[in-house]
């Protein structure tokens, strides 16, 4: 399935792009997407403990299954206001 990855703030800068694309086998979980991203972009590793993940606009956990083709966002600690 096709994962459309959105990157923000420090995650965007470390990857050098606001978008990335992953192809993952059916049944993959959020953790698999993160591992795959980290292999492609090792600079994300340091940020990993601080990242939250949203799938199709909703916060998700590492163990959550991906619903098929979806949008997965990497969200560093927030600082609006």
């Amino acid at each position: 399935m096709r994962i459309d990855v959105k990157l923000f703030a420090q995650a965007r800068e470390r990857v050098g792009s606001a978008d990335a694309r992953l192809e993952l086998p059916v049944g993959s979980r959020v953790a698999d997407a993160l591992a795959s991203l980290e292999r492609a972009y090792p600079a994300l590793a340091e940020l990993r403990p601080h990242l939250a993940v949203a799938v199709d606009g909703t916060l998700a956990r590492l163990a959550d299954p991906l619903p098929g083709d979806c949008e997965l966002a990497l969200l560093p600690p927030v600082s609006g206001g």
Partner: protein
Amino acid sequence: MPELVRAPIDVPPLLEAARRPECGAIDLFLGTTRDHHEGRRVLRLEYEAYERMALAALATLERTACERFHLGHCAIVHRLGLVPVTEASVAVVTSAPHRGAAFDAARWVMDELKRSVPIWKKEHFDGGDAQWVKGHPLPT
């Protein structure tokens, strides 16, 4: 409905929209770019957002504030992109029958916004360097 804008926040229409015959109190909070942070000179702030999720989170904040504080009105506008010193990055307006609720609600919205909305702030210093503000981790 909340808004994300890329130009200076236009405040008078926000106050106009907050007028309610049954309310006697309007509070407007503006968060503005300050020229210093932790001892360093700040030239400007820069904001980015995961827009679809930020708009949904801000809409939930508006709705929850209205229920929790019995407001007649609540609106939030956040600016994105570069925000120079003294300009507003965020505006929260609340309208309530009495002033206590209007104040409490605006403060609550700001506290929650900083904790739970996917918006990020980068400080640009006068040395030419910049850094993302440490921030609050979203729940995982």
